[in-house]
């Protein structure tokens, strides 16, 4: 699979490394070349310096042949814009977009983007653990202890 990842932070670098390790062709975009240091030394994919909201940068990253695009920079709006470009301009089959703000996440999920919201996901896990600690397990993770 050809995968383009925008944002080489902790999540971007980890997803890139895992996909590369499992035999996919990975290209990572970041505005800061120092971010690529997060990739493991044996990373076999490509790195491109630039912003993923620029169509020319996306083209250079091989978006036209990509099977998947993953937007995981720190900026919600940047991720949202790049994801829409990938989906509507380049018609990438699988587009995943990280949005921290739960309200914006809900808006764009309704508009048809595949979204991941760390705020709601992490909050749910934390709450679940807190509740289990007090013996009021929500059952979300089995809850039988």
């Amino acid at each position: 699979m050809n995968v383009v990842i925008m944002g080489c932070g902790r999540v971007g670098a980890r997803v890139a490394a895992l996909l590369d390790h499992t035999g996919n062709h990975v290209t990572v975009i970041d505005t800061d070349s120092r971010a690529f240091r997060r990739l493991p030394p044996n990373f076999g994919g490509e790195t491109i310096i630039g912003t993923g909201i620029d169509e020319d940068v996306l083209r250079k990253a091989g978006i036209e042949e990509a099977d998947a695009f993953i937007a995981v920079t720190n900026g919600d709006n940047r991720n949202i814009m790049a994801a829409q470009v990938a989906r509507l301009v380049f018609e990438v089959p699988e587009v995943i977009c990280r949005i921290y703000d739960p309200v914006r996440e809900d808006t764009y999920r309704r508009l048809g983007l595949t979204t991941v919201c760390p705020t709601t996901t992490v909050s749910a896990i934390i709450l679940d653990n807190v509740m289990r600690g007090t013996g009021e397990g929500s059952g979300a993770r089995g809850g039988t202890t």
Partner: protein
Amino acid sequence: MYIIVAGGGKVGFYLAQHLLAEGHEVLLIERNPDRVTEINEVLGAVALPGDAAEAATLVAAGALRCDVVVAVTGEDEDNLVICQVAREKFHVGRTIARVNNPKNEHLFRMLGVDVTVSQTNYILNLIEQAIPDRSFVHLLSLQHEDLAIVDAKVSKDSAVANRSISEIELPPNTAIAAIARGAELIVPNANTLLLPGDDIFAIAHQDQEDDLRRLLV
């Protein structure tokens, strides 16, 4: 009208000032609290600190009763999302975005922003007009049906020089609106002759500008 302006830089500030002077109700949303204080000192209490792409900020700003949202921050991604959230979540009837990178203008409209303003293109056009002896200048893009207003100078060797308008075959959907000859402005009819040195102001489809250039210049 109730207008929300997102972004309190120079463009947002002067836009808010202008709209207030015209008697509109204006609320300006700006991320930097120090800038909000500065603006409020000059314009009165019109600026609200916050992120205009956040629903909570837009609720506090009364987005549900607002007629127009204008997003003029320096970041294209912010302007896009502010307009999309305003439209999708608050059903704002008209959204206007400043586009910093001209490449994004088409994309913004594809993604549902009603009006885009590309300052880079405007500045390029103005500079182009200021350069002497340009024979064909794109003056203005009209968003309606992708029309453009152009200024073409008729040269001595032009195929249309010394011919009347009725003798010229213009590209389809193109109109000659006016002719400037020295200090005189002529509203042309079929018998008007085009003379070398005339400035022709024409309205054309943007994709026909090249045909028009070949014909007139």
